[in-house]
């Protein structure tokens, strides 16, 4: 880890216009910083805003979205001037791998040509040189170079995800955003892809943001992680600390709901459902489902506060305990 911040997200908000005058506030003040070469997990259930967060970083949100906040890449704000400030960095500095790589590829274009496209766009390489680089990248991700002339449908799910990684690396990015890269894959193929992702991150000095609902995958790949709920980060810290000493009830319950191979206890189930994000929220967004809620939780929104070295959590319990101790 180089210790230098390559990517900083500051107070990011994303709203989606729903058409009937309503707005859905999908990302609500997300801040995080990524160091060079670091592998960071962004964890949450469906609708928590984790994918929207990284799409905002890529500048790939749909037209009905509006964004506020800053996304700093080596000190430059990617959001400052919309598409004009995002485009020069997309694929060249920040690349992305999508869930179910079928959507990432054009079905009627050869895989090799698609991997070469960002190189030509950013003038990294063209013609023969681009083809040589495509061959090199394909071999690096475990695909015979001769398959560059094949079409996406001729690849298995695992092979497509390998090709997507090759495409993401085409312009030597510093940051790789991976959105549920193994969710649709079998467990053995998942293991292959996670191993590949880790070794690529090491070899290319990539900082990785791994977006997933799968806590064990994060524990396996990442050193730090943030847990998102209802558009906010509710806890962040080293993955060991999140598992062994969670400081937010949602983190604790999520782990308690995750089955372990050799453990036999009862699994937790969290009653209720996440709040609707097209309405204003009062108090803590997790309060209605929380097993530790107390008086201030319905009234006051808990801020994300430091709870230890490199750790933050947004829960009134942490400050209440501190007051009692003081």
């Amino acid at each position: 880890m180089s210790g230098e911040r390559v990517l900083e997200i500051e107070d990011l908000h994303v709203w989606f216009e729903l058409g009937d005058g309503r707005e859905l506030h999908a990302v609500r003040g997300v801040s995080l910083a990524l160091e060079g070469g670091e592998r960071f997990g962004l964890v949450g259930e469906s609708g928590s805003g984790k994918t929207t967060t990284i799409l905002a970083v890529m500048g790939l949100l749909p037209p009905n979205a509006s964004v506020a906040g800053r996304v700093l890449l080596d000190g430059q704000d990617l959001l400052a001037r919309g598409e004009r400030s995002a485009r020069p960095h997309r694929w060249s500095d920040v690349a992305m791998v999508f869930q179910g790589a079928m959507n990432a590829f054009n079905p009627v274009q050869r895989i090799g040509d698609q991997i070469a496209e960002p190189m030509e766009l950013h003038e990294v390489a063209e013609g023969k040189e681009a083809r040589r680089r495509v061959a090199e990248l394909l071999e690096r991700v475990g695909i015979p170079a001769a398959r560059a002339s094949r079409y996406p449908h001729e690849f298995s799910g695992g092979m497509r995800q390998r090709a997507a990684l090759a495409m993401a690396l085409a312009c030597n990015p510093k940051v790789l955003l991976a959105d549920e890269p193994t969710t649709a894959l079998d467990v053995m193929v998942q293991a292959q892809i996670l191993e590949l992702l880790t070794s690529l991150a090491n070899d290319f000095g990539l900082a990785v943001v791994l977006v997933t609902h799968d806590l064990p995958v994060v524990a396996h790949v990442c050193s730090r992680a943030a847990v998102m709920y209802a558009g906010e980060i509710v806890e962040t810290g080293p993955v060991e600390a999140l598992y062994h000493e969670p400081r937010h009830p949602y983190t604790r319950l999520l782990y308690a709901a995750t089955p372990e191979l050799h453990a036999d206890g009862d699994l937790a189930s969290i009653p209720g459902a996440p709040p609707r994000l097209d309405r204003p929220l009062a108090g803590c967004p997790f309060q209605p489902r929380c097993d530790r809620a107390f008086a201030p939780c319905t009234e006051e929104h808990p801020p994300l506060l430091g709870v230890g070295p490199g750790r933050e959590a947004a829960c009134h319990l942490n400050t209440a305990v501190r007051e009692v101790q003081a």
Partner: protein
Amino acid sequence: MTTNGSGPLLEVEGLVTRYPVPRGIVGTLARRPRERVHAVEGVSFRLRRGEMLALVGESGCGKTTTAQSVLRLVDPDEGAIRFDGTDIMSLSHRKLRPLRRRMQLIYQDPYESLDPRFRVRATVEEPLLVHGIGSKAERRQEAERALELAGLSPAALYLGRYPHELSGGQRQRVAIAASLVLHPDLLVADEPVSMLDVSVRAGILALLDDLRARGLAILMITHDLSTAARYADRIAVMYLGRIVEEGPAREVVDNPQHPYTRALLSVVPRPDPRDRVAPEILRGETPNPVDVPEGCRFHPRCPLAIPECREVDPELRRPAAARSERHTAACIRV
């Protein structure tokens, strides 16, 4: 509804199900040979009332085809399927009908399995209507009973709702209620929680566990060994159309014998970052079931394979290191 209380509710012996591979118009005109997908190639197992068996494996291993064959949603080529003592392989679809009421399927995706235009009441009463059971009042009563059994209580609160007004977990409970109105003896659950958020999965699994404790037999199809280990009584691990290992769930997970099961368990990610095991990652992908390897079908990817494995197609038998009488594996090396 029980007739044969003591024996197994479901007995499957030597099940073989193959699908023709579409040749396409070019293949047909060129008279290419007809190929067949060997989806299930000799699968045998038994399931008792009050027992949950998990069929575990990767895509293409034949677990879903096995389940569909048991329900006669596809027609098997060979073997025997006995349900409560009756051989259902040879029954006509008309004669199968009264038995089919007693075996129900729960689908993977509650977002697709429920008709968005139907209120909960209509969805849950539908199977009764199809089978011409009960008066209007009786059907209503049955639907309420099934909803409460599925954990949607009080039922009156849910009867008038549409699927879009329900969460993912509630939708899956409605789907389960619809399968319970006919008082089945066997539930086949095909990846019942894989489309649901982690926080609601345990609730659905606990519901299935509760139904099992009430005497239902449950055949669960899953790719998730951690879930199978926690909820199933027994696990059968499938690879390329065969059961390669079978036994009590804990025994299979804590003391795996077949090299495929061992590899599969070693790559299951663990939630505790300190709980590190050296993953034994198998290279390549599962071979195409059109072209099943000779001898042991796992030998091309097996770390223990010896020349003999290319010739001998191993049968399930008790391995030397098994701790349970009922633990079997299909491997000549263990």
